[in-house]
């Protein structure tokens, strides 16, 4: 085996062992299970309900975003919800955008990752 192959194998393995660990130790969003090999997990079965408001008016997400993105938002993925908020902020300059996000887990508990208390245009993240 060449030295180059040896290095490749071990860099590759280090990355593949470390990346899933970030889900457990460093990731801020428990519903973002990408790169963590959490197929069929309990988190994947949670159903979230994102309610964006521009000012006091609820946003009809279906008219703003493709259904594919709404499906991802219903899984509670923050990256996507924050990007949606940024889009709404761009489209509605000067108006506050809030997000009320409630998620129902497999054991019927209701979690509220975002209570819609702050303007996402100012804060940027949930």
């Amino acid at each position, binding site marked *: *085996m060449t*030295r180059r*192959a*040896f290095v*490749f*194998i071990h860099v*590759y*393995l280090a990355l*593949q*062992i470390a990346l*899933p660990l970030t889900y457990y130790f460093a990731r801020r969003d428990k519903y973002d*299970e*990408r*790169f*963590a*090999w*959490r*197929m*069929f*997990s*309990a988190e994947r*079965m949670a159903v979230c309900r994102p309610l964006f408001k521009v000012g006091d008016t609820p946003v009809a997400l*279906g*008219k*703003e*975003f*493709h*259904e*594919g*993105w709404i*499906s*991802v938002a219903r899984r509670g*993925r923050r*990256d*996507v919800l924050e*990007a*949606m908020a940024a*889009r709404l902020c761009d489209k509605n300059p000067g108006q506050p955008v809030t997000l009320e996000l409630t998620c129902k*887990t*497999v*054991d019927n508990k209701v979690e509220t990752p975002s209570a819609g208390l702050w303007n996402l245009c100012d804060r940027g993240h949930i």
Partner: protein
Amino acid sequence: MLLERLEAHPLGRRYLRFWTEYRVAPEVLAVFRLVFFGVLAVDMWLQVQHAPRYGAGDFNVSHLPALDAHLPVLTRPAMAFLYILQAYLAALVALGGGGRAALVALASLYGVTYFSSQLDSYQHHYLMFLVLLVLCLVRWDPEPEPGRKGATQPSAWPVRLILVQISIVYLYAAIAKMDVLWWDGRVMELQISAGWARDLIEKLGGFSFVSKMVIATELSLAVAIHVRSLRRFVAPIGILFHTGIEASGFQIGLFSYFMIAVYVLVLPEAPLVRLVQWVHRHVPAIPLVTRWAPLARIILRASAIALGAALVLLVPIGAPALVASAVILALGTAGIYVVSRERRDRHALAHLGGCLLLAFLARPGVTDVARDYYRFWGGSARRLGDLAAATEKYQRAIELAPGHAQSHVSLGNLYQMTGKSDLAMREAERAELLDPDGYRGYLLEAIIRDASGEGHGALAAAEKALERKPDERQAFQIASRWRRQLGMPPPERPSASSRTEQRDDEDDE
């Protein structure tokens, strides 16, 4: 330096041997390549139908959001084109054409399409990217050095690395299930939809027991996949495990098929080697034209390349297929010069075979991808308010699959929204004719008649829809209203059903 230190220590030597002494018979690699890349070609073609969601409404979040501001958003035509190209490259590699260059191109394009958007969050697509990356390093036709008696095949450490990657996946998948909700079977109970699978699980000891068995199987496979003496057990268990997952109704694309393809690598070698050698003995060698004059061979190769590219023109999805055809012509021609001289005939035939597969898969009777490509495009355009474009796309979907009732309903709804109620009624009638047991055609008829004030007609159609789907809310509302207005008793209330919250619009992906 480190390598020498490892060599000096008995444990280190053993560890190095884990990588360096791993061998795979070329015949096994050939079967794996055919199966794995064959499945990948089909998977890439199936992705074409999802292309319309990319770039819709100019919104995208990639898997690497830090780069979002710097990268262009890949839109529908680009994604459709890239998926077709990947389907071609995968089929080309499956059949032994293109050489390493085709594999590197495939892995790169796969990475671009996967990482460009979180719309594709299938973990198995990420796994496929990693496997493709490592497969670029495999020696596909390792031949013993000539003249060396008893020479063995070179080390297949990339294949070993793929198996280690699979172990990592199993291990973390098991860790993800170390959760009381999984442990007691509640998660699995929600995930399994097939009735027979639920009955079988109950007979085997219930969801809690089977959930624990799944974790135990994943952990066992993670280890046993590397133990040569366990091979004869590992492959059947792994294949059975993934076949069971597939049959249980999980929505996981072709993941099970990919995993089964990977298990080809751990099947007992001897029978596979004998099988491949038997095929080689009984099927005429691929370069059938060996005895022909050199000029005839060049003409035949050129014809195969040109015919293949022309076949891609049969893929009925418009501009992306046209561009793909031109690029495939260029790639097929370039491939002739990329592969070694003795592999040129095989490359030309693999190119033709790959294009044939693509044209075959694109036929409306074989897969619904082309029809759904236009349906999903139409659905996306409708939701984003472009009704003219949506109408045009649904019309195209109906041209491709005139017997698909849902497309007629969707087109009829659009006609109704744009005030063309005669055309809408025509589509409703066609949907009723095509799917007399479905409720959607009758619901559309009820909506049209309701809007035009035809009370008796609207009521009759709404009641037909309710006969077919008793919890259909809109049909219930129409029936209630007209019964009240016509002095009739109200209809029976629809029972609360878990399905009522589900969306019924099939054009939503």
